[in-house]
């Protein structure tokens, strides 16, 4: 455990300090560009923030750095020498370690065994020397201010402590580069403090730290340098001191402050009709670590944008309304009737439909045809006594494929063979079969081509005009601002602001996102009157909203 003497962090790294450098790295997956000519230099004793929205290329970059992926183009220099990491082990052996977002340890093994897995101290017989291992484990953790029984299984510790163990493991060897992939995402505020102290400790020890986070607080508190990725491109890199919060947010969301200042084209600017009752009323949605009393309303014909950075709770809010996100508290009502919690089936019956964020994992069923994918959710309506009506089904599929201009060789083509944009249209067709009253779209245009994107945006507008209530989430702020009537701004699982039709602008949204939160703890919801879930809605019973007891 030799460490360089403590040194003050310096703002501008000199060439001599550079530990790891990547030059012109490109990586494609099946024709999709994940990283395009990205260059980056990491210096010892500096914390380098890596930020960006979904699909920006952060995880691809980390995986290239740690030998999980091989770059298609470009080179990696380690201590000035070109290197190739064929496997994660190579990178680890060279002194680059990674702490993953999900604690990547073995929960059932003891703390000490986790710390020393693969490099256990052994005695002369080749057997593990437990006394020494436990002693060393205790000493090691003490460096991070952790005092636990190292013989207990890891899973008995709080998540934050587990994260510390992961860090202690990662850097108990002589590591010069430590990559932390959203290490704070599931930690309590108190635990985040501890984490930041450790990061500071690493910096003073001369380690080069890559800190991936979507929390601006942490970036501005602990990081020296910041690099912004967007759609695989490097859009900004430089000292944290030289960039304002607002500027950083605008870069992350793909907007130039200069552009933002100019007049905004907005497709929709319909002031909400306050006299009508909202169709959807979600109140006090709460889940520990995830959502803190989020309330959202949507009226007929209204597009409500849910704005916020990745990890702000926007997708979780969407899923919570749809019954697919476990909740501790909160209620969802459609036309004043409570919807049974925890059941997408009940949500669909009540008139809510969702297009999930992750098209591949949660949207399409890749082994099935376009037709089967489209009708999947609407099968009960398209069948009689359990038998699917081919006539009705083909009529629905045919009309939707034409209306949405789904490019496929026919309804029998396997959906996995379609392009991303057409897969997304298939999912849109799936929810449109349901004739929902509330449509929730979680990043519907992510990763699809410009043409399909414009079509989908126009369709959303059209659906709202026909009287549907729409909740729109996008990793592109422009899309939310241009396409929404009103915007709800989320940060760290709480609503931090609501913008009425006349107030919606990219600048206003970004200011709300960038504003330093007063308390680092969970903020309570700011809407009076609807924040508290009432006892009645809390005990939403089975059968309400026509749900069946299928789940």
């Amino acid at each position, binding site marked *: 455990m030799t460490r360089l003497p403590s040194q003050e962090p310096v703002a501008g790294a000199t060439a001599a300090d550079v530990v790891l450098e990547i030059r012109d790295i490109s990586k494609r997956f099946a024709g999709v560009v994940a990283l395009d000519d990205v260059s980056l230099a990491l210096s010892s004793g500096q914390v380098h923030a890596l930020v960006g929205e979904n699909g920006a290329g952060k995880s691809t970059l980390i995986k290239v750095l740690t030998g999980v992926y091989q770059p298609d183009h470009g080179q990696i220099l380690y201590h000035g020498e070109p290197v190739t990491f064929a496997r994660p082990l190579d990178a680890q052996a060279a002194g680059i370690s990674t702490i993953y977002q999900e604690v990547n340890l073995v929960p*059932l*093994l003891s703390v000490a065994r986790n710390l020393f897995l693969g490099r256990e101290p*052994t005695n002369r017989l080749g*057997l593990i020397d437990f006394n020494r291992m436990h002693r060393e484990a205790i000493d090691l953790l003490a460096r991070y201010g952790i005092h636990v029984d190292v013989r207990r299984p890891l899973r008995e510790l709080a998540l934050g402590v587990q994260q510390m163990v992961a860090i202690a493991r990662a850097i108990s060897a002589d590591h010069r580069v430590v990559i932390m992939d959203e290490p704070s995402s599931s930690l309590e505020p108190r635990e985040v403090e501890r984490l930041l102290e450790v990061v500071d400790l690493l910096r003073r020890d001369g380690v080069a730290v890559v800190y991936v986070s979507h929390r601006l607080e942490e970036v501005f508190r602990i990081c020296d340098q910041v690099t912004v990725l967007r759609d695989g491109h490097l859009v900004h890199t430089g000292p944290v001191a030289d960039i304002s919060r607002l500027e950083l947010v605008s870069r992350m969301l793909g907007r130039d402050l200069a552009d933002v200042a100019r007049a905004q084209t907005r497709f929709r600017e319909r002031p909400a009709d306050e006299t009508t009752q909202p169709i959807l009323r979600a109140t006090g949605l709460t889940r*520990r670590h995830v959502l803190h009393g989020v309330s959202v309303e949507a009226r007929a014909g209204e597009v409500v944008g849910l704005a916020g950075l990745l990890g702000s709770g926007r997708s979780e809010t969407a899923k919570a309304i749809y019954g*697919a996100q476990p909740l501790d508290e909160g209620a969802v009502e459609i036309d004043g009737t409570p919807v049974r919690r*925890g059941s997408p089936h009940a949500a669909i019956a009540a008139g809510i439909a969702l297009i999930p964020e992750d098209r591949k994992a949660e949207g399409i069923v890749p082994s099935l045809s376009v037709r089967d994918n489209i009708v999947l959710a609407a099968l009960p309506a398209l069948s009689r006594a359990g038998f699917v009506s081919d006539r009705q089904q083909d009529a629905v599929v045919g009309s939707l494929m034409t209306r949405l201009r789904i490019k496929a060789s026919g309804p029998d083509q396997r959906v996995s063979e379609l392009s991303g944009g057409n897969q997304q249209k298939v999912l849109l067709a799936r929810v449109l079969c349901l004739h929902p009253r509330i449509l929730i779209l979680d990043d519907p245009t992510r990763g699809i081509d410009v043409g399909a994107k414009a079509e989908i945006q126009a369709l959303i507008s059209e659906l709202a005009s026909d009287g549907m209530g729409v909740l729109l989430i996008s990793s592109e702020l422009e899309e939310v601002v241009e396409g929404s009537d009103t915007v709800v701004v989320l940060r760290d699982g709480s609503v931090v602001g609501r913008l009425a039709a006349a107030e919606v602008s990219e600048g206003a949204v970004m200011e709300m996102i960038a504003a330093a939160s007063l308390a680092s703890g969970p903020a309570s919801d700011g809407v009076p009157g609807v924040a508290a879930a009432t006892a009645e809605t809390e005990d939403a019973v089975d059968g309400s909203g026509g749900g069946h007891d299928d789940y």
Partner: protein
Amino acid sequence: MSTVVRVPDRPPPAMTSLDEAERAATRRERLAGTLQRNGAFVVLVIVALLASLLFGTSFASTDNFLNVLEASSFLGLVAVGMTFVIIGGGIDLSVGSMLALSAVLAAYGSQYGIVVAVALPLAICGLLGLLNGVLIARAGMPPFIVTLATLLFARGLAFAVSNEGNKIFHIDETLAVIWLGQGSILGIRVPIVIAGLAFALGWLVLTRTRYGISVTAIGSSEDAARLMGVPVARFKTVMYFVSGLLAGLAGLLVAARSSSGQSTIGTGLELQAIAAVVIGGTLLTGGSGSIAGTLAGVLLLNVINNVINQVGTLSSYYQQVVSGVFLITVVLVQRYLSREQRL
């Protein structure tokens, strides 16, 4: 192979403080965990005590005790290998057939002398175990289907060698290999001694060596283990190799014990071994388990068998029913525990 059904958790019960709830859950979990780890042992003691009260010395005698131990030794050997495989997140259904194949080969090989009698079955079973390992760890095929195929193959081979099971090879009683099955060391039958050694060695390897801990890590999370630098494919291959080898050893002992090799023995042994391992507190999903628990599980199954035989009016088939019920109960308890763990 599992179908993942993502169904949201039920909301936790209202508590004044979540921390308190969490602490209570941890306490509950520890208690349940202890129960799981030592449950088989506790049940074993209770069953043995009850049997002693009911049947007196016909159960609680040194002779009967040694009988139970001897009956347990063959299953025990197989179960030690199975414990590693299951802790490592796999399953080995081929061990029963391997045992039969080994017994046939041992008896067949005894015509050519003691070296062949010992080496042939071990070599062939080791080889088949290695094949299991390579197909599972390198080619990425599902363990249950690979070992099911080996189950079929080994049994087929055993039949082929023994002329479709019609020829039963006998081992010359004067051959020294007989000692492995019928000899004694300090008054204790050799199979018991060998099984005892296997358990001791298994315990040592599982708890005190890098390999043992790595196997646990692989079963808990293969990806995490790989990222932590464990040679996953190699260790998994070793796991199945050793399981095959131990099944081969058990078959050799069975052949030596009965002075013959029959191709029909060992059907369903794999299920008994799995039952013993799981009843002993090893998670069927891998990542946690103990050799001592397996010992308790093996003994429990054989004590129950012994008791059922003592009753006389009960058919021995009840043992299978009891195993099945035990298996379901234990798996449900394990499932409950892993839910607790997620809180």
